[in-house]
């Protein structure tokens, strides 16, 4: 065959194959067109065999054209193939549509009791300040609950506490303060401790009164502990609990185990002190009793009050949890009702 004829064949192959690629509707059609043109036994291979019979300069010219045609076709094939694959992928992915708004199956986490949550938070705060966390029993001796806290048998303060008595003279602790006594006797001075736990008062239950509630006792005993230090710790505590600076005030309060004794009030968080129903228009809310540890209390736990002093406070965990979450009925806390408990 002449150069001219081969040339024409190559040009025809380019045209026909490009047309074939263009009209292919599937990857398979595309492939068979490619095999026809570019396969081992395809048209291009046939033409290439005829090249041998040409003169060297003719072969060089035609060889160049052949390579150009081959390259063009391969390029076009690759690009068309990519388009088919992309379309196929897109199609497959679109078939994989899911409704993301469908509910996810399986279990949800439960929750910790609101009092536990508040308690753990305060434990963590005081642990970070170097306080040990102690626990004491629910059933206590009179000695721990009263005598060692400077509340002798004839003291009217025992009238203030409605106590659940047990048959053998033991009692259900009326406050977490007996853990002060246990802590002082166990560790000796200096010491820093808190004692969260369940306490009991023998009283009728209603929306704001419970016979069972949680307190958190705190105590620090060291060489030189002052009212100024107590104020410092109370500020730190309250800022942490309420996540903001809280204004506080100490006013005289009588508790036999502290001297001086205080009631700590905070500036009402609802009205910021301008007066509302929560603070009974006073601008202040009574939060916790505290004071410097009475020397008799130290002495009864073998700590020399001439060398050591301390402060103590009693935080109502139940009350704090109620304040934090706006719980208006104390009975819910021990109701075991999941409609309530799962909210926290």
């Amino acid at each position, binding site marked *: 065959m002449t150069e001219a004829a081969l040339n024409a064949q190559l040009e025809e192959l380019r045209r026909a194959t490009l047309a074939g690629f263009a009209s292919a509707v599937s990857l398979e059609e595309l492939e068979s067109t490619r095999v026809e043109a570019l396969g081992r036994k395809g048209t291009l291979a046939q033409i290439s065999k005829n090249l041998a019979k040409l003169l060297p300069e003719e072969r060089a010219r035609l060889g160049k054209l052949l390579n150009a045609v081959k390259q063009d076709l391969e390029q076009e094939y690759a690009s068309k193939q990519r388009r088919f694959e992309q379309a196929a992928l897109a199609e497959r992915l679109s078939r994989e549509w899911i409704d993301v708004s469908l509910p996810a199956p399986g279990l949800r986490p439960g929750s910790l009791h609101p009092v536990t949550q508040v308690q753990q938070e305060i434990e963590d705060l005081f642990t970070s300040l170097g306080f*040990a966390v102690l626990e004491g029993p629910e059933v206590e001796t009179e000695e721990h609950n009263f005598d060692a806290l400077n509340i002798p048998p004839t003291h009217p303060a025992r009238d203030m506490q409605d106590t659940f008595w047990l048959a053998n003279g033991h009692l259900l602790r009326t406050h977490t303060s007996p853990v002060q006594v246990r802590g002082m006797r166990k560790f000796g001075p200096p010491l820093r401790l808190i004692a969260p736990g369940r306490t009991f008062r023998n009283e009728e239950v209603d929306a704001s009164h419970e016979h069972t509630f949680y307190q958190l006792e705190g105590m620090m005993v060291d060489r030189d502990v002052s009212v100024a230090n107590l104020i410092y710790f109370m500020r730190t505590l309250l800022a942490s609990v309420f996540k903001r600076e809280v204004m506080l005030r100490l*006013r005289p309060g009588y508790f036999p185990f502290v001297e001086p004794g205080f009631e700590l009030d905070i500036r009402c968080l609802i009205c910021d002190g301008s007066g509302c129903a929560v603070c009974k228009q006073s601008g202040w809310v009574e939060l916790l009793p505290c004071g410097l540890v009475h020397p008799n209390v130290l002495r009864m736990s073998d700590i020399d009050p001439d060398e050591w002093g301390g402060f103590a406070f009693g935080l109502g965990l139940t009350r704090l949890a109620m304040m934090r979450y706006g719980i208006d009925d104390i009975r819910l806390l021990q109701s075991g009702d999941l409609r309530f408990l799962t909210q926290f």
Partner: protein
Amino acid sequence: MKFSYQWLSELVPGLDIEPAALERLITTKTAECEGIERVASDWIIEIDNKSLTHRPDLWGHIGMAREVAAITGRSLRDPVELSALPPGEGRVRVEIEDLALCPRYSALMFENVRVEPSPDQIQARLDSIGLNSINNVVDATNYVLAELPQPMHAFDADKLRGDVITVRAARQGEQLVALNGETYRLDQADLVIADVEGPVALAGVIGGAETAISERTSRIILESANFQPTRVRLTSARHKLRTDASIRFEKSLDPENTIRGLARITKLFQTFAPQARPSGGVTDRGAELRVPAPIVLPLSFVAQKLGANLDRAELVRILTSLGFGISEDSPGFLTVTIPSWRATKDISLKDDLVEEIGRIFGYDNIAASAPIVACVPPPVDPARLYFRRIRSQLAAQGFTEVHNYSFTEAREVERFSFDIATHIAVANPIASNLSHLRRSLLPGIFRNIETNVRNCREFRIFEIGSEIHAGQGNALPNEIPHLAAALYNVQGDEQDFFELKRVLECVFPAARLTAVAARAYEHPARTAEVKWRDTVLGRIFELHPSLLEAVGIEGRAVVLDVDLRTASHLAERETVQYAPLRKYPTSGFDLSVIANLNTPVAEIHDRLVAVAGADLASIEFIRQYAGPPLVFGQKSVSYHLEVGAADHTLTADEATEIRNRIIAGMRQANFELRV
């Protein structure tokens, strides 16, 4: 206790502070105000009685006036003029049986008394602070009670039999018809005022009706005494009779006030009962008045305790404004004398003086300051941290924490066939459901299930709380922390048991179960003991269906009860020791062991492990199967085993050999294999 602003103003001349502002000052410096109320032209300030427990002096207006004077920097006018007392011998004979119970008894007779209504403004004043006006004589005694505070009693002198008043213990069986019309049966624990025939008053609490004054009375004997506070409190509690007098005597009143009271009433009679004339002088019997020891107060002590520096003049000013004396003023310390009205119980230590100084100085004037202390990590209670971890793990597994009461009652525990007699009894329960202390968390958990089935078809709850077991003899009870968890499902089946078992194994990874005989409240075929190593931790069981049926609950509940004291002790001993990773790959194969249906799978597992020995790298349960082609009563249990050597990769032949050895070993133990 109610205070009249006008009355306070009379005792603090020139008081010009607004009543509402005064109320706030009293709250921050003295005692908690509960409110302030306008009554006619006066303001009534109400103080919380609880905040006055330790302050006998504040049960009268003069005590509060002294505070007001100290707070506002004014001076106090003492209304008592001792010179008003008539001179001469007392006409009343008094005998005191026990000076400890009646440290002082003063009396004064008046004659020519005309009993009539008090002047209107006196009636109004008493009424405004909650004291009913009776007649001029009683009103005068009440006036002194509300002012000094000294409770007094007026006897009709002509109704007293004999010529001597005796303060003595009541005799068993004696009775007193009191002013309130009630009859009280007395015993030796009661202190009475008696004439020769019998009791005429219950000391410190209430007078008798027979000797009360009336419109026909013309001679009266005024009693102004001091009684031991505890005895008054016990008598008042025993007879359930709290009076304005008993409330005050309980607080340890100032014995100086008996005479001051008589002087004050003598003066008051000039207005209340102008015709009345004293008959003779004052009778005053009792123990010698105790002079309280002065307190040496180092100035450095005040600064150290308050964390604030007050100058010496300020300290002296505050203490003297409250009635304290400075007997010695030396460099570095003050010697402070205690006034009689603060000495009965309130003030005896230098710490007490720090409070006096601090509150008047104002706690708001003390700046917060961090203490300088050693930085040491606090001692840690591992059990507490362990419980916390368990709580968060259970919550992550869908369990919600409940708090149940430490109380229980017969009805609740009998459901579980517990004997109520083994529970500690509460001596003074206020309600029947508070009669005993719980020695198991299960009745509480059962109550929670009852509560929640109404609203939830399926739920998970847990509690960490103490079982309270009676101690030996007089020892405190043994309080054992327990975990109780329950999984309830209205459409429950045996899978619930395995779900709770799964949770158990997440929380206590070393726990293993063994089937045990069920207790009355446990499903007889679905109960296991939980062990950690060889120690029993607790039990896991399906609640006996009849317990739920008995209260009309459908569905099933699986329950876990674990002794956390034991668990935390074991957990503390657990240590992690790294094992080197295998250097050479292992070979794996499956084995299916045929066994009787009721052969525990654990037994097969343990046997495989024992037979495989050191070659075994891991073993994993795949499934169990019962049905054709197995004969009825048999099951096939399949495992995937990986075997290997520490020093080389096993050849195919070696792996086959191990497998054959295991099969042979199982056959020796009478387990056929599906090969």
